[in-house]
């Protein structure tokens, strides 16, 4: 069946805190919606089978493989991508740890590792090395040999004051949300009239 026969669905969600409304084909994958409709190309695709973790984004704080997640299933949710991590345009502590530990080389898997690690760091306190290894076992990296990535996440977990989970979990309305608007770009800032959906 060709695409045009399948109809179009309206979806509303927030992406990195910014409200977005769009009409999409039902078969549109979340990753294609982010990369092609919203021009958020920071999220990458590799295996397309939900096993490499490259396309990981957070949907309502839960990590999902955007390559096998329909955009229509993100309707009404808060989506976060790598573009939303920076703080005032500069790397956040996790991103900074990836740089100083050389936890990336080609960088293609990095957005997925950052989002997966963010989900872990926000989920609870008292994270040890085994937790990190287990949590990141679904993300593939072909450059680093993983140890620098585990070191980077462990450093952030150790340095973090307790009970800091979800500081980035606010989906909109805050000063943080405003700074993220720049990351998304004018195409979606202009696309919708009003605001808060939380």
């Amino acid at each position: 069946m060709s695409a045009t026969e399948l109809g179009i669905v309206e979806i509303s969600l927030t992406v990195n805190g910014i409200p977005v409304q769009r009409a999409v084909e039902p078969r549109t994958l979340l990753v294609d919606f982010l990369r092609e409709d919203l021009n958020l190309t920071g999220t990458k695709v590799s295996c397309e089978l939900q096993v490499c973790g490259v396309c990981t984004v957070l949907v309502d704080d839960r990590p999902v493989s955007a390559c096998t997640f329909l955009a229509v299933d993100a309707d009404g949710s808060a989506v976060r991508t790598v573009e939303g991590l920076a703080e005032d345009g500069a790397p956040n502590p996790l991103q900074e740890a990836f740089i100083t530990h050389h936890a990336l080389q080609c960088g293609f898997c990095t957005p997925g590792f950052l989002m997966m690690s963010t989900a872990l760091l926000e989920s609870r306190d008292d994270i040890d090395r085994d937790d990190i290894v287990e949590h990141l076992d679904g993300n593939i990296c072909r450059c680093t040999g993983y140890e620098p990535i585990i070191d980077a996440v462990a450093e952030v977990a150790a340095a973090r004051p307790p009970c800091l989970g979800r500081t980035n979990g606010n989906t909109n309305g805050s000063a943080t949300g405003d700074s993220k608007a720049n990351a998304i770009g004018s195409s979606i800032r202009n696309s919708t009239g009003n605001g808060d959906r939380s």
Partner: protein
Amino acid sequence: MSIDLPAAPHQAASRHADEHQTVGRSVRRRDLVEKVLGTAQYAVDMTMPGMLHAKVVRAERAHARIVDIAADNAMAVPGVVAVVTAEDLDTLFPRFGHIISDHFILATGKVRYFGEPVAIVVAETRAAAADAADLVEVSYEDLPSVISADEALSPGAPLVHETTYAPTADATFKELTDSDDDEQPGLTNIAHEVTIGWGDVDAAFADAHLVVESALRYPMLYAYAMEPYNAVASYGDDGLTVITTAQHPFMVRDDLARIFNLPLSRVRVTVPYIGGGYGSKSYTKVEPLASVASWVVGRPVKLTLSVEEAIYTTRVDDAVINVRSAFDADGRILARDFDITMNSGAYADNSPLVLAKCVNRCFGPYRVPNLRVRGRSVYTNTSPASSYRGFGAPQGNLAGETNLDQAADKLGISRADIRRKNLVRFGEEILPGNRGIDADLITDLDMVVESLESGRSDAAHYGIGFGVTASDAGAYPISTAQVRVETDGSVIVLSGSTEMGQGSRSLLAQIAAEEFGIGMDRISVVQSDTAGSAYERTTGASRTTTLAGLSVQRACDDARQKLRAMAAELWNCPQDEVGDVPGAVRGPHDQRLDFGTIVRKWFGGSAGEVTGIGLVRREGATKEMPPFWETGLVGVAVEVDPDTGYVTLDQLVTCADVGFAINPQAVEAQDLGAATQGLGAALFEELVYDGPQLANANVVDYRVPRAGDVARRIDLMLAERRDGVGPYGAKGAGEGQLNPVGGAVASAIAQAVGRWPTRLPLTPERVWRLLNNLPESD
């Protein structure tokens, strides 16, 4: 020679850093900042205005005549613009291949492997192209096929290619191999054959105290660079522009110019950030497909492959290696005899050179007085094989090193001692007439063995293995660079070397910062644009630090010479009264002029630019081949679970003999990455043909190392003796620590289970079978 102390992990600085301002330090890589922010632009992110999308229709037979291609149903899909087949290319040169131009852009007359491109659907959207590709109906008449090299070599085997092809004028290929100049593949399935040798091998075997014979199989692999091949191409009146994932944009340009009969100057190939390469993105891949599609439809066309399609585009040569070695009673090597058969798939691509390098590297960096090596690269009806990190060394060294370990066991000497007795000493030749070894392998080996023993566990079913390899690296020494000094004294470096993640962009900036005596924040590096950057032959063979580094250093030197001359003119003094100081030129009475001031004053009008040019060819320091030897020294310790055969990696130890570490952290990162890829082949990875097609052309069934596979103890050591021809005594890195891993793991597991394996990967089932004295499985 003094023994270098093992470096601490995550070394911040080279042991020679104090002699320099910028190089030798683990500087912050600027590209990593863009990459963590998600703002780095990769090839797959690139678009062109008015761009269409392509989807490839692929063969569903291993070997079959194409009877008909029916495109009507596909063309009826809304948004479909064209279905391109081989017939549309008859006014072009429809093939590519830099050694043998045997690779048809689109299958012509027949298909030679399952997955071969048969047609290209071009449509307004990716979805429309994908929908329509399923509707292209290709009818076939099956032909008998050959999947394994054995089948392809058997008498009367069906031919993958019924013709020979005029060799492509990659003029340097002949110089890189010792193959017979007049050799042409005859009407067999042998794509290429290489033999080397010296001495009287048969006599040496006849007189030997001990002869050890073994046969090893190296698995068929997929490099899995995480960004699959993609390209966007635009063909117009001005020529052809392509943005792609290629490691060697200048080599791809050659193929594209030949296809369209265009001057090189009218083909522009650019490469932005790419998601890994590991050799698998060297030479031409999808660029001709996107380019001919654009040529047909007259609009830009983007083609992005899936991982499955990428596996059916390029894989790694699997190999069977038979080795016999002769020893005297003291354990000295008297002779070695290798026979190598590589399954190279349906098209030659770079396999002839991979084979030639395997032949050069299989017998190891040892004193071998009598040698015979015969290698054959064989066409089969399988996915085409080409370059992969290590370039023939992992295949050959698996056989060579485990054979040496078996000899040590039989002679009753240690596996370290048999190597100490036979390793070439500094400056000794491995290949007659070539550069002698520029490394101290015995000291490096001692570092690795000492580290492994210090971490030894007394667990049951525990084994330690290690290996030493040396690769004739650097490829052919042709490199150029330009530096442009701006009116504010900042510097743009132009290089044709590709940033693939290995860190060349940062490294070349570091060298330029050192040479000019300015901060790295004053330097930007522009790479891999055949119309906008300097020429570089390839980005492979671990050459960038050594050769691109040298050309950048020479370009800086050239620019500084020009700046001195200009300053002398401005000061109206003889040239011998001016000299270099960091960031400036010093003149009479200790006057200083910074670079920006010199440029502005010399040109007048506060404008202008000074360009320095650096050239590297087979002359001077880089006259002798190879430009440098890349050594591999890796040790592992394994613990085997006797109930399941599961292998736990207890230790991973590497020693990179790099001469001088310009960015030590980046060298360590490359070493751990290379060794981890080697562990994949040793323990997990293997593409399996089940009939005409792969049983596991996906990342679910083709398992690569994961975070849970990291060794319990990792020791990454650097040996820095400033003995390389590169800048500041540096040599290349990045492949060496992959090469010995297969042999080291096989050797460690043999120790742990008491039986020698004959093939990789050593999956739990295979290890369990070894432990229980069962056949290894197949």
